[in-house]
């Protein structure tokens, strides 16, 4: 067939190219239908990567706080993330309360239990009516490292809080960023203090 030439589609122009024809309508309708079908077919291929039902069902974690004395902290897992629970000392609470809001790099509470624009006062950060407890997602808001400060002997930064070893962000004893590249205070997860000794996260 090397010696044959052939007819190309360009050689069959429609009689009046300005006037839309039935063929144009069919082409647009068919093309649009095919595009919609492609989009619909593509969606399951993409959506399957979102958290699945088994991940979403791991919604709540209950933690017993009986043995956490003042000055101690524990770390628990919730939805695969570390949750810092610190039983704060009176000194730590006073330090956190003494800071004027205007001095904070991030003046928003970042507390999932409060309105989005709640100011970052210590009351808005600590547990409701139980200000000695601080429950917070222990992930640095810079690039996701886990700050030091939970274990005895850990560096706690200049503000008796947490110190992120990755890029040097420092958080105070209410988990608010005070220094370093982190843009936000560490987030407070949705939780309720079920009793004096029990917290339900999520």
């Amino acid at each position, binding site marked *: *067939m090397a010696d044959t*030439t*052939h*007819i*190309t*589609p360009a050689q*069959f122009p429609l009689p009046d190219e300005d006037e839309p024809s039935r063929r144009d309508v069919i082409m647009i309708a068919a093309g649009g239908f095919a595009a919609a079908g492609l989009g619909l077919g593509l969606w399951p291929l993409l959506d*399957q990567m979102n958290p*699945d039902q088994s991940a979403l069902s791991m919604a709540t974690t209950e933690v017993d706080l009986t043995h956490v004395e003042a000055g101690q902290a524990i770390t628990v897992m919730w939805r695969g993330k570390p949750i810092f629970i610190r039983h704060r000392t009176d000194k730590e609470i006073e330090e956190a309360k003494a800071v004027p809001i205007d001095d904070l790099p991030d003046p928003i509470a970042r507390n999932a239990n409060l309105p989005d624009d709640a100011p970052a006062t210590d009351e808005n950060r600590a547990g409701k009516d139980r200000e000695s407890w601080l429950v917070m997602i222990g992930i640095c808001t810079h690039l996701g490292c886990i700050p030091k400060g939970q274990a005895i002997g850990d560096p706690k930064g200049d503000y008796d809080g947490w110190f992120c070893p990755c890029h040097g962000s420092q958080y105070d004893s209410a988990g608010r960023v005070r220094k370093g590249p982190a843009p936000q205070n560490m987030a407070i997860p949705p939780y309720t203090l079920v009793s004096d000794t029990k917290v339900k996260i999520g």
Partner: protein
Amino acid sequence: MAHSSSYEPSSGIEKWIDARLPVPRLMYDQFLAFPTPRNLNYWWTFGGILSFMLVSQIATGVVLAMHYVATPTNAFDSVEHIMRDVNWGWLLRYTHAVGASMFFLAAYIHTFRGLYYGSYKAPREVLWILGVLILFLMIATAFMGYSLVWGQMSFWAVTVITNLFSSLDAVIPGLGTRLVQWIWGGFAVGGPTLTRLYSLHYLFPFVIAGVVVLHVWALHIPGNNNPTGIDVKSARDTVPFHPYYTIKDGFALVLFAVLFAGFVFYAPNLLGHPDNYIPANPLQTPQHIVPEWYFLPFYAILRAIPNKLFGVATLMGAIVVLFFVPWLDTSRVRSTSYRPIYKWFFWAFVVTCLVLGYLGSQPPEGIYLVLGRIFTAYYFLFFLLVMPVVGWIEKPKALPGSITESVLGPEKSSPASPQPAPRRRTPEPAL
């Protein structure tokens, strides 16, 4: 490739690319302007359907692999996790599992079309051989994919099929056993077997895609065969692939997709075996093990032979014989439409494959075994005896003068020019 390029880059960027890596030229010449016989019927649309199925299987498979866990303790549960928890997991898995069946359905129709119209005859032997190679790779891929579910049918299918290789013990004592242990990575089907099946199941579709590229390449050197089996003689015998066959293939693909979707949404387990929803148990073989429907004819052939080594050899032979079809067929014409004697043998062969499929689903005893042997004999006689002998003794019917003549009737005094589009400005054909 086989026809002179008619691509004319219009914009500056097209010229720039064309001088460096002329992919647009390749795509235009091979998939838009490609001269295609004007008389192709709907049996020719399965090549496009198969391309779609390969893409569909790879797309759903890559996605399923994000959730599947290839360990004996977790494989079955991870499949159920896909079905219940993963977003759209049920749809993705059913599309993949039913897709395998649809892929084989289209591949078998495509193969029978090639057989009927003599598409394997010169100069398309390599094209045919590559096609048989793709079929062989598909069989291996489908088998390995089925094993990953790690249900009872999966497990015992792996056991039975891998044990086929132990038949080599009859040739060299110990060879088959060593080979099977090498395949298993142990002394029975287990964890190492599962992970290697998974690895290769992921690899093979891309090997298939590579051979498909060669298959299409080999197609585009001589161009398509056609229902008359006669060669293209002038440009009037052809139409450009686009829009004529993109539309025709597209329409057939839509109809095929309706069938596919019908299975996925209304009968997703109809083509599977319920026993594969029982987790694999290495201590108990199911009462009645059968492969998926697309392997049943081969399974019937295996069971028809009462000797282990010979049975395995026959099973392999049923596929290997296809490689030699271009030289077994001695006919002067390609298309069975012009072969009055061979036609009957061909349709008898189609019936044989269907009957073998039925027999493969039945227990291997009594009348089923007897029939299995008779039809297995015809399966091989068709290739080894009918093809050479009938081609030799048969007088084919008169062929049309050209493809155009087969469509428009015999040439009259004023030669009819092709009329692919009803309204066009230039009446003369582009010769």
